[in-house]
């Protein structure tokens, strides 16, 4: 344990300066006092390791490790450090949503080395905050760096960072970038550009992230140089994991086209080359979405793998399955049927029931501005911002009970893993499944790649998460959907009638024809299942319409619909039509 007396003394000092630190930003700022950790052990328990301070956007807290502060001899910079941490909360990144957007834009600027984004984002935010505090508030941010930097801290990369501060604050060469042997004209030129970037984008910082990342790219390109540089400045990284624990930040699946346009190399701009290339860029954007990797409907979404990577940078503890569920759900949402409108006459709609805290991730329309303003003059999501909750009449009278739906998806070797590649079958199934749930029906989902393996929900269910978790899983075994899977739900007549949708391709005919080694053929099972289900049966075939004509006629005769899709995007059309026909009420 470090000098306990010193630590206690520092605690008293820093506590006393906390109100003043808040004043540096906003006299009306309401932010909880930092969590003061008196030892490394306590800091570790709060999740703070490697640095002396950190912020948590999820609960709007600052965590300070006073033992580390004492060890590093920066007890005297309470205002600087505290004001800096507050800056992360109210200036940049400020909230989970902007944090995610910024990270995503920075990732654009670091193609192939996206894993550097959290550090780059942290340093970018530091520049913006420190420059304001040093130049406007006249705090001694430069002294903090002087105190923390050691001979060993410096790499070419860190020299660039410190040189940039020297440019920003008109310091002499070597005041911050003390290791002169690493200085170069290249670093000077880049630092000068970075300094002007920080100045230009201080108000509009979200738009400067891409340029910032591109400037840093060459310094972080090699794994080893990056790892070394990061290790040496670990103590300064206070916002890399700012989003830890954040759940369900919506709106991130869509491609950020504006952000993409901001991936500009300032060196190129400075050389006057940018204009000449504007045309080229236009071109590449035409074919463009490819370059951006647009996926899904209108090529308007980022790929699932990229989405998971990004969201795990936002929240390193994010659960992959939960993310992938959210991904397909978010893309499915615009295509779902409307919620059934209740038509009971004597019940008033939407009874206001009370207030809840509005947080990032909640829809902006839900904010109750009046109540929020009453709560506090400054609006802080998750803290002072309020939303009203409504109760609805639970005495719903649904005039017509919708049929359940069974969704079987071919998950054989020819299908791609929906976690890595955008999957149209999974999107289609999500749309149908969620529409059915909205309409009040139950859904059974089944992935099947047979011979081999299958995965299905526990019968017909109404739990959205369970359904999505099943639909977004992956098998990659066998060659087709196994007809045998129809036995469990439909060998006997189920309690409630059900539609059957099977998404597969031509290989289903091999499956239908294959030897069951029992008396009953797959054809017979398919026929019985449909009869027992009592609803529509549709085979969605990824195939040319005239293929296997005789076998298709045989399916028709049993009562199966066969819906051809020749490209996967047509699956979306099918899902929309199916949902509208079966689950939308007028």
């Amino acid at each position, binding site marked *: 344990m470090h000098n306990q007396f010193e630590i206690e003394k520092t605690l008293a000092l820093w506590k006393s300066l906390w109100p003043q630190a808040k004043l540096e930003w906003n006299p009306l700022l309401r932010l909880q006092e930092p969590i003061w950790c008196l030892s490394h052990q306590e800091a570790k328990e709060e999740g703070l390791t490697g640095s002396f301070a950190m912020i948590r956007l999820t609960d709007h807290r600052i965590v300070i490790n006073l033992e580390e502060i004492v060890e590093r001899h920066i007890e005297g910079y309470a205002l600087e450090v505290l004001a800096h941490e507050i800056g992360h909360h109210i200036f940049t990144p400020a909230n989970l949503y902007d944090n995610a957007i910024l990270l995503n834009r920075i990732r654009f600027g670091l193609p192939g080395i996206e894993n550097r984004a959290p550090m780059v984002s942290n340093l970018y935010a530091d520049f913006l905050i420190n420059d304001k505090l040093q130049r406007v508030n006249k705090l001694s941010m430069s002294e903090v760096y002087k105190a923390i930097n050691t001979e060993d801290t410096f790499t070419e990369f860190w020299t660039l960072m410190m040189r940039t501060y020297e*440019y920003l604050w008109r310091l*002499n*060469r070597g005041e911050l970038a003390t290791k002169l042997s690493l200085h170069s004209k290249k670093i000077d030129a*880049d630092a000068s550009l970075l300094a002007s970037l920080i100045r230009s984008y201080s108000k509009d910082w979200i738009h400067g992230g891409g340029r910032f990342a591109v400037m840093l790219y060459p310094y972080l390109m090699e794994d080893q140089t990056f790892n070394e540089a990061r290790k040496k400045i670990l103590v300064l990284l206070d916002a890399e994991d700012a989003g830890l624990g954040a759940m369900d930040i919506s709106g991130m699946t869509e491609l950020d086209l504006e952000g993409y346009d901001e991936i500009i190399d300032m060196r*190129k701009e*400075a*050389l006057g080359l940018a204009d000449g290339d504007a045309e080229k860029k236009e071109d590449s954007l035409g074919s463009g979405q490819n370059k951006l990797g647009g996926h899904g409907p209108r090529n308007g979404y980022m790929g699932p793998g990229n989405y998971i990577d990004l969201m795990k940078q936002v929240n390193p503890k994010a659960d992959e399955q939960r993310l992938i569920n959210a991904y397909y759900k978010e893309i499915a949402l615009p295509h779902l049927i409307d919620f059934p409108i209740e038509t009971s006459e004597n019940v008033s709609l939407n009874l206001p029931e009370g207030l809840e805290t509005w947080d990032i991730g909640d829809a902006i329309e839900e904010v109750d501005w009046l109540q929020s303003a009453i709560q506090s003059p400054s609006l802080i999501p998750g803290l002072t911002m309020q939303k009203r909750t409504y109760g609805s009449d639970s005495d719903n009278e649904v005039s017509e009970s919708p049929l359940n739906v069974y969704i079987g998806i071919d998950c054989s070797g020819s299908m791609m893993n929906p976690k890595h590649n955008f999957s149209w079958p999974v999107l289609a199934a999500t749309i149908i499944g969620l529409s059915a749930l909205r309409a009040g029906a139950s859904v059974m989902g089944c992935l099947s790649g047979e011979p081999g393996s299958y995965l299905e929900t526990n019968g017909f269910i109404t739990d959205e998460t369970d359904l999505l978790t099943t639909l977004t899983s992956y098998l990659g075994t066998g060659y087709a959907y196994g007809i045998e899977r129809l036995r469990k739900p439909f060998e006997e007549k189920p309690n409630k009638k059900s539609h059957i949708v099977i998404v597969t391709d031509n290989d289903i005919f091999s499956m239908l024809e294959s030897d069951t080694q029992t008396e009953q053929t797959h054809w017979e099972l398919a026929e019985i299942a449909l009869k027992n289900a009592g609803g529509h049966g549709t085979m969605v075939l990824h195939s040319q319409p005239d293929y296997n004509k005789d076998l298709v006629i045989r399916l028709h005769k049993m009562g199966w619909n066969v819906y051809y899709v020749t490209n996967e995007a047509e699956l979306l059309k099918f899902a929309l039509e199916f949902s509208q026909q079966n689950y939308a009420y007028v």
Partner: protein
Amino acid sequence: MSKYDVFELVTHVRKCPELFFKSSSFLVKEGLNSIALLCDTYRTVSGNFLNTVFKIPSGDHLKAIGENHWRAIHISTWLLSHQDFKNASFAEEKLYDFWFEELRHASPYVKFNEWVSDDERAEEMVRLLLNCCQILPNGENPEEAADKLSSLNSAERHNVLKKSYKANERIMDIKRQMEEKRAREAANTYGRE
């Protein structure tokens, strides 16, 4: 206030009235009378208001001066109107180089308004002038002053960026090409290595 304080002079440049942003009458009708402006400046710097003979480029040279360069010169006359340069007769003979050499080198890389709107460019103009007139900025030693100027020098930075940008583009091109399938198919190998 001490003389030749960079911060003070930068502040002065940044207050440059927009009038000085105008082009030259050599180029447009309603432009500033550049020659008159230069002569006035010569007079205030030298402190000799009766002087009528000034070092001005010849006709052909004047014609070759571009618009951005003229505007930089006009802005610099505002800088030279600062009291630190009044009666600084030792600087008089350096002005020609400052206007027609230093600013000529820099102006391709600095848009005229940046000399005023951008702190760093304003400082560059101040330092270019001080250096040209062999004046040491207040509180700086020669090494410091030289380093700060070279850190801000637009022409120099342009050249460095050109090199580093080219080198970086080349590396990216190589990396891209290395990922190309046509490179990965390689060519016949004839023996084990």
